[in-house]
């Protein structure tokens, strides 16, 4: 019998190290630090990716892994211009953009289908159902936006991260971020105003 057991979690959660210190250790290829970063931020990355309608849900695990591999690869370039969380979510946004290019058309089609389904099932007047319908409708509207606008909306308006940090993490001028955010908000307002 021959068996190979996967990697064991290295003892200790490294609670006393700052996020930046972990990232610095990660830059040297330290897998324990990478594991600790994953422990701290994987839920945030999953949540952020779940907010992007154009990310492929079935491949989300791969996307999370790809994000943290990219975090390890680029850790040496972190200069403290934003919080580590914002920086990692910026990496996730850039990683998801690459994946979503090939998936976008299919996802948009699916999202439109979902909206149509919800439109048909509006039969009860209670607020909870109405709110779910509205959220689904907004998600459908967001799915039709360019990926960059989705990211701006998700990071600034939903995750409520500081715009200055988000712009730095995405390597774009602040003005570009605000423009994308404005366009995303306008699309959401249009959907709410037109159909809610």
């Amino acid at each position: 019998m021959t068996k190979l057991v996967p990697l064991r979690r290295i003892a200790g959660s490294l609670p006393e190290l700052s996020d930046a210190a972990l990232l610095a250790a990660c830059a040297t290829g330290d897998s324990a630090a990478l594991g600790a970063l994953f422990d701290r931020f994987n839920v945030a990355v999953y949540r952020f990716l779940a907010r992007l309608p154009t990310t492929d849900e079935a491949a989300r695990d791969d996307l999370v892994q790809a994000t943290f591999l990219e975090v390890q690869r680029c850790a040496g370039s972190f200069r403290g211009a934003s919080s580590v969380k914002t920086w990692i979510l910026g990496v996730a946004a850039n990683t998801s953009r690459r994946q979503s290019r090939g998936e976008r058309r299919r996802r948009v089609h699916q999202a439109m289908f979902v909206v149509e389904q919800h439109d048909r099932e509006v039969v009860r007047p209670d607020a909870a159902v109405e709110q779910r319908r509205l959220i689904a409708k907004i998600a459908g509207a967001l799915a039709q936006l360019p990926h960059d606008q989705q990211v701006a909306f998700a990071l600034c308006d939903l995750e409520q991260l500081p715009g200055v940090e988000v712009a730095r993490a995405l390597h774009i001028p602040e003005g570009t971020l605000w423009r994308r955010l404005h366009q995303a908000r306008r699309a959401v307002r249009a959907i709410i105003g037109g159909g809610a």
Partner: protein
Amino acid sequence: MTDAGFEAVLAALRDAPLEVPSADHREEVRTGLLARARPPARSRSRRWLAVPLAAAAALIAIAAWPAPELRAIALPVLPPLPARGHVHPLPGAVFTAASHVPDEIVTLHDGTIHLDVDPLHAGERFRVVIGTSEVEVRGTAFDVTAAHDHLVGVHVLHGRVVVRPFDRDAVVLVAGGDWRDPPITAAEAPVPPTPRPRIHAAPPTPPASPSPDQLAYDDAWTALRGSRFDTAAAYFAKALVAAPGGALADDARFWHAVALARDHAVRPAIAAFRELVDEHPGSTHAGEASAMLGWLLVDAKHLDEARERFAAATNDPSPRVRASARAGIDALDSPKP
């Protein structure tokens, strides 16, 4: 739609349930991530050396394979675990890859495995643990045999191996060296007198290998002395990761912050000094760190906090630190142009 109405919609979106996989599922993703993660970057000068060394080790392993009956066995090459080498188990071998770089451990329970281990970087270790014994290598090809979690034999094909039996002194084997111990079986009773193990080409036992945190700490100081502050900061952080509660942790934490400051990474340096001062007030560097933090905060225009940090350093035992803290307070009190 009013702004208030839009905010209400945003709040509803924020509170909408999001699908996050279970903890078990995320643990699987984590394991997969660490298996895919790259090892520490090799320096250019060693990268070219690794390929011929690995090839030579493989050739030697094939040429010197001792038992004729074993030559007929196709040795499976496992997936890239461990990262610094390849494990070729013989049929019946039971082993686990227990930890990853920088301190890779393969636990062998039964049978024989052949290992080809690449040359290691500073701070890395590669060990085969059998019960309470262990075999440590630094770039070699060798066989290890165990029976019922007991180390039975080691045969070195290439390189150098340190054998640490639980009940004997450590020995060092070089190429061609053997270490043997009769296997212990459940049927053995009474136990005959154990012959001394045959030791070939065993030079004097070297001093114990430095720990990963010590190695990282030394690398950090080398970088710091060379004015490579970003590298120094990374290695001090690595030393902290390797042993957060170790004897070097206090110094590593302080010099990590200093290296960041010297690298002009102001925000990370401020965060690192704050962490040291606020969460480790008993640190021997707390006063000096507080004064340094004060000056960084002055530059960052956080004047109120800077004053607090300087004040905290005015009672430091070191006259140099006290003088720095007082100079900081004086600077804050002086009229601005």
